[in-house]
């Protein structure tokens, strides 16, 4: 990711964009922040936010034309917020913040012509920036058209009070001083800049030509050093627009005096339409609160109540849907920046490694985002970068990569044409996790396929998804090369996939290999011949689509058709099909961040009280392991006792290895009548209590690791002994991890009391005693 890509990605997340009210406000009052403060009865804070943009809150709270209200997302849900009235309440109940200090004097003199809203605004803003300002007003009072507002609405003492206050620091006011063409020439000669805020009508005649040539973005006139804004040039002659153009003219004058660009970085000045997306689904209408005494405005309590109707517009659509995005307490725009920074660190702690590795890569965020920002792509690329930089934490994915190596190793991998066939028209590729979870179903499905179709070969192994998820392009390429070699040796054919992750990997990375899902095949060719006889079926089941089928609507349809064909009643989950959620296995989230993974899976299984049915072995096992009764589609095809089957916990990691190895051995012997040439695992019988088995499983220690430690300890005698308990304790480091096992030899094997591991190595052996 380079800077340009970073900025493009950041721009896709609109969470930090202004809410519609602020964008529609020509001076961009932080309405959302102000209303949040009012809703919490914090009027001082609310007034402080308001006066950041607006020097006359009492006046504007009474006269503002409120373009914000037309943009308010509440407008069809009980009417737009009464924003001006709430501003008035802020001015009434909030303590004015201490006046901001003027910048030190900069020796420039500015003449402001006209004491209406725009002129007073320009004079106020430039005085605060340290300029010396003289304001010339033709009449005997400040305020211009504000005086046309009725006194009931705008009390005169408030009008004069706020305007005088705004000019009290650093502005010399000359009333009763009409400006003529001659005086304008004199001002132009005398002052460093002149502002014309002369309003409409005959009094502006002396400047007619200049006003006709005002540039709309910078408010310059054809005469150098003379600027003009306010009603005289307004497309919309409103009070709030006069303040807005006045503020922007003041920026131009300040830049002009500093001799810097008048045009740089002036996007989004004035009113605009925000890109911020806010989901209004499920929001109940709440009627507007009217002041009981309209002339007096809101009471404090009424204002609080009205402000509480504010929706506090924001997007966060993806964050609401994803426990992972929620976990880190922010949103994609920030995450993208954190990931970019993380990848750029040369020295120091890369504190966002876990954030990058915790994403399930399921892509739901991209599906939900109104601007298609997909964290899966970003996190996946970041992992590849980390691997390339040699900065991927070794512990992050090693266990899954070992599991993959086992599936593709001699003990479990198998490629054969159908017994008695020379060639393949089809190749059944059941996937490593179905072979690990339900090897008997792999056997049965393979038998069915051979009855249904000619020349169906078999390929047991892993598609390489764990390597892909881990950012290990090298190992992924190796897994694909292994597939291609086997595929070529079998003579090609159409590949039948029973795992949706394999399907996704094939479709994306082996597009030239013809592949179809087992479910599509069954739904086209009819139920398999050995499908279970009609039996008592469970009540309705909710369908969980594996996240890797997100864009496979044909598979979604085939699965539902099959379920109905088997007589099942099905219901849909709120997040299904292209909006389905990950079980937490995807992207190796479960390995990288167990806390987030647990939240993800718990949230998913709580979405529906019904039992679930799915068509991914890992989803099924993850759910059933957390006591959510879940059936695999093949369970429904092949099992009789579905109640018991739905509760079956997934096999432990060691068992998964054994299941794959046994599947290969059995098929080889029974179908191809070949002996297994590879030696079986170390013939050491282990006895583990449920408690110990669960503990070592959690620590990702396999029984084969334990066997290796015992074999090593018994062969070398390198072990400790506890004379009180008779236990032995030994360690062995076959590769990157040292495993420790506490055990006792018993008659028929070894009783295992405990096992633990670490990655640190002993580098300096103790000195040998004499």
């Amino acid at each position, binding site marked *: 990711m380079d800077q340009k890509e970073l900025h493009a990605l950041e721009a896709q997340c609109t969470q930090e964009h202004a809410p519609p009210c602020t964008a529609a406000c020509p001076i961009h009052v932080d309405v959302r922040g102000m209303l949040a403060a009012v809703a919490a009865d914090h009027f001082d804070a609310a007034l402080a936010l308001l006066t950041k943009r607006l020097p006359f809150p009492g006046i504007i709270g009474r006269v503002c034309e409120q373009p914000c209200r037309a943009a308010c997302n509440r407008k069809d849900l009980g009417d737009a917020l009464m924003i001006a009235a709430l501003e008035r309440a802020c001015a009434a109940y909030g303590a004015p913040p201490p006046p901001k200090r003027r910048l030190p004097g900069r020796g420039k003199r500015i003449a402001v012509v006209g004491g209406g809203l725009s002129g007073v605004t320009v004079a106020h803003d430039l005085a605060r920036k340290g300029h010396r300002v003289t304001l010339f007003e033709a009449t005997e009072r400040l305020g211009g058209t504000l005086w046309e507002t009725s006194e009931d609405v705008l009390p005169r003492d408030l009008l004069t009070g706020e305007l005088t206050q705004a000019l009290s620091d650093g502005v010399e006011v000359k009333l009763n001083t009409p400006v003529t063409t001659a005086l304008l020439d004199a001002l132009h000669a005398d002052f460093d800049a002149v502002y014309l805020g002369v309003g409409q009508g005959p009094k502006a005649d002396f400047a007619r030509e200049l006003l006709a040539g005002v540039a709309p973005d910078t408010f310059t006139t054809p005469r150098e050093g003379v600027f003009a804004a306010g009603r005289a040039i307004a497309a919309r002659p409103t009070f709030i627009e006069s303040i807005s153009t006045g503020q922007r003219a003041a920026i131009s004058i300040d830049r002009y005096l500093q001799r810097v660009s008048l045009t740089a970085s002036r996007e989004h000045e004035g009113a605009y339409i925000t890109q911020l997306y806010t989901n209004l689904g499920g929001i109940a209408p709440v009627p507007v609160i009217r002041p009981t005494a309209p002339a007096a405005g809101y009471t404090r309590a009424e204002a609080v109540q009205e402000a509480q109707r504010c929706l506090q517009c924001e997007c966060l659509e993806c964050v609401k849907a994803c426990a992972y995005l929620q976990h880190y307490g922010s949103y994609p725009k920030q995450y993208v920046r954190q990931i970019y920074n993380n990848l750029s660190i040369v020295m*120091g*702690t*890369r*504190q966002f*490694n*876990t954030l990058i590795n915790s994403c399930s890569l399921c892509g739901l965020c991209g599906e939900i985002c109104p601007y298609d920002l997909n964290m899966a792509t970003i996190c996946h690329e970041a992992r590849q970068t980390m691997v390339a930089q040699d900065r991927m*934490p*070794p*512990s*992050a994915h090693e266990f899954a990569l070992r599991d993959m190596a086992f599936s593709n190793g001699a003990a479990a991998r198998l490629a054969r044409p159908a017994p008695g066939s020379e060639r393949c028209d089809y190749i059944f590729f059941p996937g490593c996790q179905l072979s690990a979870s339900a090897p008997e179903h792999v056997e049965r499905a393979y038998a069915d396929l051979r009855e249904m179709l000619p020349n169906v070969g078999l390929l047991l192994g892993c598609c390489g998804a764990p390597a892909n998820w881990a950012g290990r392009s090298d190992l992924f390429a190796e897994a694909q090369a292994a597939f291609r070699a086997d595929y070529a040796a079998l003579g090609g054919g159409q590949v039948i996939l029973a795992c949706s992750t394999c399907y996704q990997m094939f479709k994306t990375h082996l597009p030239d290999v013809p592949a179809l899902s087992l479910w599509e095949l069954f739904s086209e060719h009819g139920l398999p011949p050995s499908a279970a006889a009609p039996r008592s079926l469970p009540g309705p089941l909710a369908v969980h689509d594996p996240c890797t089928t997100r864009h496979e609507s044909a598979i979604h349809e085939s699965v539902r058709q099959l379920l109905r064909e088997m007589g099942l009643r099905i219901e849909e989950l709120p997040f299904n099909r292209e909006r389905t959620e990950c079980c937490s296995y995807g992207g190796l989230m479960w390995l990288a961040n167990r806390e987030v993974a647990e939240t993800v899976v718990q949230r998913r299984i709580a979405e529906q009280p019904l039992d679930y049915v799915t068509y991914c072995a890992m989803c099924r096992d993850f759910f059933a392991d957390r006591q959510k009764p879940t059936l695999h589609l093949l369970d429904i095809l092949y099992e009789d006792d579905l109640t018991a089957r739905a509760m079956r916990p997934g096999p432990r990691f060691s068992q998964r290895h054994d299941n794959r190895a046994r599947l290969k051995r059995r098929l080889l012997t029974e179908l191809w009548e070949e002996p297994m040439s590879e030696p079986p695992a170390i013939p050491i019988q282990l006895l583990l209590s449920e408690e110990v088995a669960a503990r070592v499983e959690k*620590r990702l220690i396999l029984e084969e690791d334990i066997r290796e430690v015992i074999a090593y300890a018994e062969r070398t*005698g*390198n*072990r*400790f*002994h*506890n*004379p*009180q*308990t008779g236990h*032995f*304790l030994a*360690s062995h480091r076959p590769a990157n991890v*040292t495993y*420790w096992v506490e055990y006792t030899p018993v008659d028929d094997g070894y009783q295992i009391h*405990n096992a*633990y*591991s*670490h*990655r*640190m*190595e*002993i*580098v*300096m*052996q*103790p*000195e*040998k*005693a004499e």
Partner: protein
Amino acid sequence: MSDVPLSEAPPPWTCARCGEPLTLGEIEVAYLGSAFPVKLWHCKRCRLVLIPEELAQGRMLEVEKMLEDK
């Protein structure tokens, strides 16, 4: 790593090779290019070093994670 508050009470283990009790001494452990001295029980004669479960699953794991993010 050297700040690990290891119990200095002798562990219940003896060296199964020679039957000798273990002695406490400074041993260097390392991960990803960083090395630390740690006081560990070991057999001086057979040079077997004991890494107890609390250390492996506790402070050692923390330091491993920290070094992995460096």
